[in-house]
């Protein structure tokens, strides 16, 4: 489930770079911990965020949790399918359950994120 071409945060977000665009979601570990996801409060297209800003809120049956921006950027696309099918995040957190895309984004900040290997080690420790 942890993909090698993807960056990870300690808050269990992932970010995948594709040219000048970056796709953001939550990790399998995060969706597992949240349980059944009932609502994804998608950010507005055009929203500018700094790294660690609250990007959106995900609700499960029991609670609401913040998702933070892994790096700074501007939201250029959101996964509209989550509006009626938020369970996609449970089913494929790093596939069809992606949340939004950034363009542009702060590529220099990628160095501060974890690689797949580092994230695996981080999960093992926590």
């Amino acid at each position, binding site marked *: 489930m942890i993909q090698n071409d993807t960056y990870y945060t300690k808050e269990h977000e992932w970010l995948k770079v594709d040219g000048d665009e970056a796709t953001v979601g939550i990790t399998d570990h995060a969706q597992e911990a949240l*349980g*059944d996801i*009932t*609502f994804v*409060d998608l950010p507005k297209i055009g929203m500018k965020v700094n790294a660690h800003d609250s990007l959106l*809120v995900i*609700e499960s*049956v*029991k*609670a*609401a949790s913040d998702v933070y921006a892994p790096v700074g950027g501007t939201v250029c696309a959101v996964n509209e399918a989550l509006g009626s099918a*938020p369970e996609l995040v449970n089913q494929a957190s790093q596939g069809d359950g992606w949340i939004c895309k950034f363009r542009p984004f702060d590529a220099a900040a990628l160095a501060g994120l974890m690689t797949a290997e580092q994230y695996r080690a981080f999960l093992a420790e926590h």
Partner: protein
Amino acid sequence: MTALPRKTPLYDAHVRSGARMVDFSGWFMPVQYDGIIAEHHRTRTDVTMFDTCHMGRFWITGPMAREGLDRLLTTDVNAMQNGQCKYGFLLREDGGILDDLITYRVHAERWLLVVNAGTQDRDRDWIRDRLPPGVRFEDASVRMGKIDVQGPHALPRVASVLGVDASRLGYFRFMEFDCGGEAIVSRTGYTGEKGVELYVAAARIPEVWERFEKAGVKPAGLGARDTLRLEAGLPLYGHELSEAITPVEAAMDRFSAKTRPYVGSEAVKRRRGQGAAMLLAGFRIEGRQAARAGQAVMAGGRRAGTVTSGSFSPTLQAVIGFAFVEPSLALPGTRVQVDTGRNLLDAVVVKLPFYKAG
């Protein structure tokens, strides 16, 4: 004070099933097994079972048992027949709700009280100290276990697994049966579905649970129990009910309408006369973003109440909840808003229950 949560006789079974365990009112309890929504739907369409061993069970026996309970509970115990259960409240003198509970009448001199997990220690002291002399009080919470089997297929499954036909019992009726020792089955529950609550010797509980598992009955956790009871419009002590309110504010005065005096009856009568400053009401929000306990209810741009429970409803595919609101807003059809801290959600006050089994 930090004490390790207590374990029910089914703790090992839950861990084996891969349940996510949490500390609930001082007990290690399963919040979910394969997922709250799956467990919720399974209860609505098929059958599930719940570990409810954490709840309190008290036997009240003796010639003056009925008189003692009549004085302590809002429940009209004098109107009860053998084999009947009734919902009611335990109140303080000032009418504050100490607990909501179900009273079982085996016969005039033998009664069972079933109370909430988090309140059972306080209830035990409160009741024991106030029973008339000669009435025996036994806390059977450890000796007796409890499993709820709920869902449209619950009754035939209970019949095939335990050989007891609960389908001949009316709603809120119970009978004793033999389950390798004394046992009780009642047509009650906390889900709004058909089903039973089973009281069996604690030592036999793991075996009974396993027999249901082998018959294909899957367990459901506290997460589904909460969404199910919410849809059924049932209050949860600590959320909708507390010492800070009387049954009048809870809009449940029909359960405290007994004309004979009981502990708290004068206070309830006064409150009834004055009218409540806040009333409990159900609300519905279209969409998926949930209102949660503690959030403000707004009307005309000002605060007019507080949410006590709120969740996405898996059955209704909308958000439902309870809130204390100003009495003028408690009428079904009234439009209010809930301030989630991020935005205002349009809510409408609706009649309870939110969901009724077909």
